[in-house]
């Protein structure tokens, strides 16, 4: 299946791009992120990272659907 992946802030700098289309066998957001860390050597897993799917906050273990847009948020620091 296909998913659009978007990176923000620190993750964007580590991945070296702000978005990409990934064709893969499917799975959870956590599995997709893990795959991306193998593709982009500088992209590192962060315990406090968050994920959103189609502009809604989501969970790392939620299974993704074909064409979902997956947003990887590094640890947030508002305020």
């Amino acid at each position, binding site marked *: 299946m296909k998913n659009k992946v978007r990176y*923000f*802030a*620190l993750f964007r*700098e580590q991945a070296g791009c702000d978005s990409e289309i990934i064709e893969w066998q499917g799975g959870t957001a956590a599995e997709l992120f893990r795959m991306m860390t193998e593709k982009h050597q500088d992209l590192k897993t*962060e*315990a*406090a990272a*968050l994920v*959103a799917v189609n*502009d*809604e*906050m989501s969970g790392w273990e939620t299974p993704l659907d074909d064409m979902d847009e997956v*947003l990887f*948020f*590094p*640890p*947030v*620091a*508002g*305020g």
Partner: protein
Amino acid sequence: MKFSVSQTAIDVEAAKKRVADNSCGALVVFEGWIRDHNEGQAVERLEYEVYKPVAEKEGARIIDEAIEKFQVSHALCIHREGLLELSEVAVIVCVSSPHRGEAFDACRYIIDNIKTRLPIWKKEHYVSGISEWVNCEHCAAAGHSHRDH
């Protein structure tokens, strides 16, 4: 809008007026300012990146939660994005209610959740010329309250 993102300076007096209500005897305002140091480094300016589509939805949700949980009359939050200079207001939370107790509690709830749930990131530009994303990973640890940064 109860939660909004602003690219220009926050008008604090206008924000306060938006929660004014004759039935309220208390107004609690929290202002977050850009300070000149963080974790031993001299800070020159700060840059906020906000992913608005999610921040606006989740921010409104946090304010609705606070209104329901603490039964306050009105609440709002405005957060800046872009490049900010020292002493500028980065965020403001205004809460009004008949009595002060619930207004303090709701204000605290809103700012604490804004800091940990919204897709907002800050890059600090230090006097030394270096700039770095502020990593609040340790904020997820129990007991840490953003008190020091």
